[in-house]
């Protein structure tokens, strides 16, 4: 009997994955393992041997994909930040005003802390210990949210006369609170911080009472 095309068996072992596909799978495996290792051991205490053991791969495979520990860390960082940006942007209500979007974004960040505390630790704890390049990426992440934060000024009477560094201080202060949350325990229960963070981020423009109301809603 001849089976239709889709059901016809392929000879075992004859289906070959492309080199690019194999490399991508290896890269993902190493990055997933590396995130866990960096989060548990800290950047400084992590060696390439730790990473390849966790990824169940070889040092040769590691160096085929990354230049070294620092390069691997930066790839981990970029993967986490780009996925977080995508996930948070998907949460933002499209037709809502600035305060509602800011509250939703804060909720999204806290949700990520709860759901993936190891990834959050890479961004809010380990990046600052990962040398000049790690610190530079962290600073870029802080800088990237400043334009969105400045959107709150249009809601405040005299918004343009607020201190020039207010948004930088706000972003840095929130990042510090998240850092402390992660170093003192885990991300569990992080969402309970939302009213306080909303008061810090949104309060300067719309008042703390309104900011907390938005967070509760």
């Amino acid at each position, binding site marked *: 009997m001849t089976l239709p095309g889709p059901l016809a068996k392929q000879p075992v072992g004859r289906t070959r994955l492309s080199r690019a596909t194999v490399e991508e799978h290896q890269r993902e495996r190493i990055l997933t393992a590396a995130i866990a290792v960096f989060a548990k051991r800290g950047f400084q205490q992590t060696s390439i041997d730790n990473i390849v053991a966790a990824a169940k791969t070889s040092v040769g495979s590691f160096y085929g994909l990354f230049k070294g520990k620092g390069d691997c860390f930066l790839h981990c960082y970029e993967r986490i930040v780009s996925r977080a940006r995508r996930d948070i942007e998907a949460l933002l209500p499209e037709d809502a005003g600035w305060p509602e979007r800011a509250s939703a974004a804060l909720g999204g960040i806290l949700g990520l802390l709860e759901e993936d505390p190891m990834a959050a630790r890479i961004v809010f704890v380990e990046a600052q210990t990962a040398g000049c390049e790690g610190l530079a990426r962290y600073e870029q992440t802080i800088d990237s949210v400043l334009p969105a934060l400045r959107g709150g000024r249009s809601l405040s009477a005299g918004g343009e006369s607020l201190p020039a560094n207010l948004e930088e201080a706000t972003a*840095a202060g929130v*990042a510090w609170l998240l850092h402390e949350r992660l*170093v003192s325990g885990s991300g569990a229960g992080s969402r309970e911080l939302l009213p306080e963070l909303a008061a*810090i981020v949104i309060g300067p423009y719309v008042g703390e009472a309104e900011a907390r109301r938005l967070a509760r809603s």
Partner: protein
Amino acid sequence: MARAEQPPSAERDGEVTARLREAIIDLVCERSYAQTSVVAICDRVGVEVDVFTRAYGSKEQAFLRIYSEESERLLAATRGAYDSEETWRDALRAAAYATARWIQRHPRETRFCVLEALSAGEAARLEREKTLWHFIDLVDRSRQGLDDPGSVPQSFAAAIVGAIAEMLLRRIAAGKDLSRAESLVPEMMYIAVRPYVNKDEAEQELSLPPPPHV
């Protein structure tokens, strides 16, 4: 009775330890903690490694001891300024200017403690956090000026201090000149008092002069 004179070797040891200390701060700031070796430190001073080991033990112990000494000096200056004023706002402002002026006078030590401590191992990172918590405690005392101290959570003080530390870190990492650190104090004071006072009172901070005695 006359005090016995210190043996010359003890004086020499003290002088060598001081020179090692300066070399450690210089090299860590030039190269980073990870890239600074005990051999390089000793070469800079012109001593053998066992001299370093007798003085400090290990590189990590050296870093932690120097960090502890410098942070204690900063905290002493800050607390002294804080305690010299009567109201919480004046006290906080005095502490802010004392901190800024210490940073201006000690840019190497500031870099050592604020930036390099992040990459000097877990113990150094924890010491850095403890230092920040001393500042958080000072800011959090602002709640005592409120009718309802419980209306502002401690996390606000933590966010304020964390923000200022991060902003200082960014400027150091970018190689910015710290000689005018006190020019940032009015804005930092606005941010620091805003959770505890109304908007008009916070805006006063943008134009208040430094305390004369700090």
